[in-house]
């Protein structure tokens, strides 16, 4: 009977497993092409709709631009609205008028007002009906004569230098130069103080250009077309973007990231971005990555008139989710199938043995040891193979992630070095070209001023050009002759400058002027070269001073991972660019920096970089307790070095992936050991009972190993978080923030250092913690005068701030508060007792209206590596937990309100400073409180099963089971009360399996009592129940653990 059931079960499991594999394969490989096709048709439809909208608006704009009254208004080139009082032509004061004159003027005024009214009404009416946001009348000089909204624009000249680079200025320039309708770029318009897209129509009257009409399109209309999510599942969205140099700039908010508009990403990445092909003018579909780095299925198309790319995409994870569930189910059935096959092998062993004997007797290979012919051996080999393969894969993934990052760093660094070199070559070319022209006399001495002015205009990077003639070489009567683009007060001193002496000595030189430009704290550098006369005698020196801003920017925008950054080092080892600007200002060298940090390894690297130009080297930072990689690449033209620095912790594979690998190793290894046991059992080396005992030990070991893996892999993944571990990555974050502010035309954020020290922390209820300690802010008395002082803890449900202790040090004022109170803190007990508590304290500045960013006061802590737990008192402890890490991080936030402030939406409003304390639960308490009683209950059940014989009185057994059942209920209730959670706790599964065991045992007792005629059952069931009791518990726990924590 048992053999039959086992046989049929195996067959059934085999059919189900094969079926699932088939369905899984079919779904997985048919789902992607289906969606590609669907998305392709969507992207075509939406792009066509956008195109139709643009054509319609261009047609509308053209129609309105042909209105005679508008053309007349432009022709007369007068400001239309608001109506100005008539003034004298010579004076700006209103004239004294005679009554007749007054009457005439009044009449003219009335006529003009009437005309203005007409134009104004006409345009305003069309603005409404045609759906434009604004219509601007611009005359041929570039002066805005009329605007339907934003009246303050009227009178502004868009040809003025500050407006020429705006999208409106550029569009007007193109339209007026080419006499062609123009679609502007879509970006933040400085004039309108909002993102704007225009169609500009040039106006000709009697074949003369008289101005243009600029129509501001409503981008919301385009978003309305693109941002429809019907048919895009839960994660599908539409992205719009354009190419801007080596970057792709996103143009619209998306479903998954409402702040995506105007954010930049590198265009050429691996894997390629879904939007990449579209912004390069192509259309197509396939799998790619999106701006979040997620794998997506997408379709893309170019929108020609605007040079935009459109991509519609859905997360691959979402599309494959049903198949992933199917895959997990398949694996579960596969495991069950393997187990059932093992059981079958055992049950059918005599038959198999007999068959093998028959086969062997007819075959020549009967000399092979019989153990090797066993089916267990073959499956054992397969399982061992899988164990080895998974171990190799795990190791390989770890090393390949590091290798990939290393290669990326080498590539990025080389690319940066090449870009910087090409900029420097241009600078050198300008100098050499002037020198050549002076030597060949193609450039006359009198024309030097004009030439250097022109070169400055043509090369934005150059800030100053000086041509200094050696004494009496200009002519015989002039001792000092110099032509420069800036005023030079003491010309004699120029002969003592570094650039002059070095250039005269070596022919050419590169010099850094770190403090030349105090105004914006960005250093400049000088390239100097000698120039010669026709007889090749040195005649003087040409010095080209150029800003290092553009060069620094190249380094600033490249970095591996969230916190990786780039540096540029001069030939003398001094930093030309480093995220910490103070290092650049102080001309600190890499060696000095390493010595100041007491980092011997880094000092060693600094020496190596200076002498050997090593491409890649690793270093350990004791400050942040991390392994770093440093990659360098030389710039040959002037012996500078570009470097990239990144943390190894950030680029290794995620702890979740490591856990997956370890789980699979555990599964295959357990199966292999079981098979080995089965093989040994086959040769009757030990009895079935002993086999059960050994199997239990193996399962318990596997279970303990799985818990160990869970503990070891429960760590914070840093890849997606902005964790601040040292001054460099804080500076990188703040630099990016300043750039964002610059792009949005906001003032640079006010940085206020902030710190925290916690004395105590304890849980107080389900979602609350009680904390006590200190927090402080540091204010610059000169700069932060209008800022309301104070700090807020927005999670506080009850918080008492003590009187602030104020201390002064120079211009710095530190305010420290003692705090004590209760904070809201959601706690997740689902993984109890392997849960990790992450205490997050959000710190916000009191003056939320101002553009303030709180920064971690790093210098206030002795050590700031997360393992050094900055911000926690020495005596700090939380009962039942071990403190693992503490650190500051910036978290992107999205408030769905503007708090009533009109100006809300600044870059600083997007970020919150969060203090984190990570704690791991000690396992002793859960073991003593819950696991031990549970084991006692299980042992009691097992003992009852052992003592129960065929003829034992059922009522006494059932009484025992019932008692244990109630004990179990009480224990589970206590667990629930202590750890309230919306879902089932991991530990509760152990209780459920015990309930099932009790139910089985009760059913068994009843069957034994009422069905005495079931001889086989009566004779064998008890034995099997005893044998299978512990394996059932262990396997159930093991499978639950693996699935729950996978």
């Amino acid at each position, binding site marked *: 009977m048992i053999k039959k059931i086992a046989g049929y079960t195996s067959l059934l499991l085999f059919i189900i497993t094969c079926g699932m594999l088939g369905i899984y394969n079919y779904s997985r490989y048919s789902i992607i092409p289906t969606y590609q096709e669907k998305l392709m048709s969507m992207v075509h439809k939406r792009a066509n709709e956008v195109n139709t909208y643009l054509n319609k608006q261009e047609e509308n704009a053209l129609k309105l631009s042909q209105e005679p009254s508008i053309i007349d208004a432009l022709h007369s080139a007068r400001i239309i609205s608001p109506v100005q009082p008539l003034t004298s032509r010579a004076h700006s004061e209103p004239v004294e008028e005679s009554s007749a004159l007054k009457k005439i003027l009044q009449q003219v005024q009335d006529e003009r007002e009437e005309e203005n009214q007409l134009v104004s009404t006409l345009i305003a009416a069309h603005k409404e009906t045609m759906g434009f946001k604004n219509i601007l009348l611009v005359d041929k000089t570039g002066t805005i004569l009329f605007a339907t909204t934003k009246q303050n624009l009227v009178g502004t000249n868009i040809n003025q230098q500050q407006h020429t680079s705006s999208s409106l200025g550029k569009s007007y320039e193109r339209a007026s130069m080419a006499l062609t309708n123009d679609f502007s770029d879509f970006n933040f318009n400085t004039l309108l103080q909002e993102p704007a897209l225009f169609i500009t129509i040039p106006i000709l009257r009697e*074949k003369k250009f008289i101005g243009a009409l600029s129509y501001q399109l409503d981008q919301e209309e385009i978003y309305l077309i693109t941002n429809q999510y019907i048919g895009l599942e839960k994660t599908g969205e539409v992205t719009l973007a354009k190419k801007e140099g080596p970057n792709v700039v996103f143009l619209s908010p998306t479903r998954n990231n409402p702040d995506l508009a105007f954010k930049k990403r590198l265009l050429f990445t691996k894997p390629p971005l879904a939007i990449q092909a579209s912004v390069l*003018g192509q259309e197509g579909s396939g799998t790619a990555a999106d701006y979040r780095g997620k794998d997506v299925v997408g379709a893309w198309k170019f929108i020609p008139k605007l040079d935009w790319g459109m991509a519609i995409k859905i997360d691959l994870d979402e599309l494959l989710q049903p198949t992933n569930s199917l895959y997990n189910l398949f694996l579960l059935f596969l495991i069950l199938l393997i187990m059932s096959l093992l059981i079958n092998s055992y049950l059918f062993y005599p038959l198999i043995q007999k068959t093998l004997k028959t086969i062997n007797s007819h075959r020549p290979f009967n000399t092979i040891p019989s153990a090797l012919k066993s089916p267990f051996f073959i499956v054992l080999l397969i399982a061992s193979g899988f164990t080895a393969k998974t171990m190799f894969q795990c190791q390989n993934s770890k090393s390949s992630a590091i290798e990939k990052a290393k290669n990326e760093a080498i590539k990025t660094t080389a690319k940066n070095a090449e870009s910087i070199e090409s900029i420097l070559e241009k600078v050198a070319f300008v100098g050499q070209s002037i020198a050549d022209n002076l030597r060949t006399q193609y450039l006359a001495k009198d024309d030097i001023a004009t030439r250097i002015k022109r070169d400055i205009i043509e090369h934005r990077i150059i800030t100053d050009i000086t041509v200094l003639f050696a004494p009496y070489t200009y002519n015989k009567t002039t001792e000092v002759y110099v032509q420069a683009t800036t005023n030079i007060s003491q010309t004699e001193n120029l002969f003592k400058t570094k650039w002059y002496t070095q250039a005269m000595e070596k022919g050419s030189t590169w010099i850094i002027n770190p403090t030349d430009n105090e105004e914006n704290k960005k250093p400049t550098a000088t390239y100097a070269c000698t120039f010669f006369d026709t007889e090749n005698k040195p005649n003087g020196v040409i010095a080209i001073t150029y800003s290092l801003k553009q060069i620094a920017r190249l380094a600033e925008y490249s970095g591996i991972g969230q916190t990786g950054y780039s540096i540029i080092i001069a030939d003398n080892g001094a930093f030309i660019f480093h995220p910490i600007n103070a290092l650049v200002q102080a001309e600190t060298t890499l060696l000095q920096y390493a010595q100041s940090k007491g980092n011997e390894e880094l000092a060693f690297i600094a020496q190596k970089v200076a002498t050997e130009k090593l491409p890649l080297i690793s270093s350990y930072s004791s400050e942040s307790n991390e392994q770093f990689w440093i990659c360098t690449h030389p710039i040959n033209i002037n012996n500078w070095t570009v470097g990239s620095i990144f943390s190894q912790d950030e680029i290794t594979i995620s702890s979740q992936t490591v856990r997956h690998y370890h789980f699979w190793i555990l599964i295959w290894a357990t199966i292999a050991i079981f098979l080995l046991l089965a093989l040994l059992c086959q040769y009757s080396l030990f009895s079935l009972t002993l086999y059960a005992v050994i199997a239990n030990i193996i399962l318990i070991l596997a279970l303990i190993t799985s818990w160990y893996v869970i503990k070891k892999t429960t760590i914070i993944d840093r890849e997606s978080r902005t964790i601040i571990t040292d001054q460099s990555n804080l500076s990188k974050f703040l630099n990016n923030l300043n750039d964002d502010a610059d792009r949005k035309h906001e003032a640079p954020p006010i940085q206020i250092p902030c710190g925290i020290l916690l004395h105590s922390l304890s849980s107080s209820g389900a979602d609350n913690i009680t904390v006590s300690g200190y927090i402080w802010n540091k204010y610059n008395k000169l700069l932060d005068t209008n800022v309301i002082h104070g700090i807020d803890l927005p999670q506080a449900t009850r918080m008492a701030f003590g009187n602030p202790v104020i201390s002064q040090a120079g211009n710095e004022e530190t305010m420290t508060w003692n705090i004590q109170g209760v904070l809201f803190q959601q706690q997740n007990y689902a993984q109890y007792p392997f849960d990790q508590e992450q205490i997050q304290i959000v710190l916000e500045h009191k003056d939320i209206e101002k553009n303030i960013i709180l920064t971690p006061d790093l210098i206030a802590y002795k050590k700031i590596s997360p393992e050094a737990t900055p911000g926690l008192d020495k005596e700090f402890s939380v009962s039942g937990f071990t403190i693992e890490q503490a650190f500051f991080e910036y978290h992107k936030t999205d408030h769905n309100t503007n708090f009533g402030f009109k100006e809300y939406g600044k870059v600083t409003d997007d970020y919150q400073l969060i203090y984190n304390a990570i704690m791991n639960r000690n396992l002793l308490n859960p073991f003593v409180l819950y696991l031990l009683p549970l084991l006692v209950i299980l042992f009691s059940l097992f003992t009852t099963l052992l003592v129960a014989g065929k003829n034992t009185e059922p009522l006494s057994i059932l009484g025992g089971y019932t008692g244990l059942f109630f004990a179990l209920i009480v224990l589970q209730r206590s667990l629930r009360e202590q750890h309230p959670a919306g879902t089932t706790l991991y530990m509760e599964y152990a209780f459920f399996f015990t309930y099932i065991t009790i139910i089985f045992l009760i059913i068994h007792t009843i069957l034994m009592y009422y069905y005495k005629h079931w001889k086989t059952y009566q004779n064998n069931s008890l034995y099997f129940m005893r044998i299978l009791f512990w394996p059932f518990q262990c396997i159930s726990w093991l499978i639950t653990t693996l699935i729950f924590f996978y």
Partner: protein
Amino acid sequence: MSKKWYLILSAIALCITCIIAWQVFAPHIQQKTIKIGILHSLSGDLAISEKPVADAALLAIKEINAAGGVLGKHIEPLLVDGKSDDNTFATEAERLITQDKVAAIFGGWTSPSRIAVKGVVEKYNSLLFYPVQFEGVENSTNVVYTSSTPNQQVIPGVTWCLQHLGKKFFIVGNDLILHGISTDVITAHGGTVVYDYLLTFDDKNVDPIIQKIIDTKPDVILNDIEGQTNVAFFTELRKKGITPEKIPSMSFSVSEPELNAFKTDSMTGDYATWSYFESIDNNENKIFVKKIEDEYGKKHDIGDAMEAAYYSIYLWKQAVEKAQSTATELVIPALHNQAFNAPQGIIHIAENSLQTWQFVRIGKIRSDNKFTILWSSEKSIKPLPYPPTRTIEEWDKLRVELTEKENKQ
């Protein structure tokens, strides 16, 4: 097994074998080539300008073939010599279409050569990709104009001169329509034309032009003289002491290959307007320049027409792939809105015509025969074959009058 079953199973096995064999061998059986014509002057006066343009087109074909071709077939270029003669262009175009059955013709240089081939492709409903800037006032449905229209070259070039160089213009060149457009633009922006000197293609005597320039004292010279006459013109100008600092000139038919071929530095300091300059500083252009250097060495200076010839091939390939056919009636609709990330920037063919949205750049000639870019449109400009200074009817009337005048001569 019965005989019947044996036969059925054998038949099934045979069918499966045939299907597999078809799948394996079919692509090879179908593998043929798609012929296209490259029609440029490889001999005669214009060979010096046109040979590099043909080379750029051949490079694009080589790249496409290396990547697998079009619709699984390789492109077979038939390189044909137009011999710097308009009639030869027309004859060779007809032969390419009727005898060689080419899918499209890429070529032409002068306006008369284009007009000659245009007549042929319109007659046989074929396609011509014309890679040279043109005077406009033409909008054929069988010609893909992949270089600049007047509003992408002459109009912004003249306007820039008005803004930066002066208001008084001296126009000299071979094309009457271009002169008409230049005069219109100058007038539209409040400038004046002090003299308009029309030069025939055969006229090499530049002395009267120089004298007129000295007499009229313009602020700027607008030059659209074709070919070698430029050398004589600029050498004489310099001899008479007219330097770019005194009277700068803006040229519309002098690019890097011409400057290199002229072997003179007398044009250094003057200006030109093009969509593409070899000195454009972007990655796409660096790659393009390197490809040309790798293929042909450093013998070519790369000009606007070479770039246009290169991306013309790619635009055609994209359209064929979209249409899944080389048939003209299917390729033409597929050409609209085709975009390409060209060395000058992203360009695309217009929605309603076969003209191309292009960038505009103003450059100053350097002593190394390259250009320093002074102004860029930073975005592609819509092509207008008929400049807005006159109505389409007025332009057509002018074209007819000029044709009649030329025929009489």
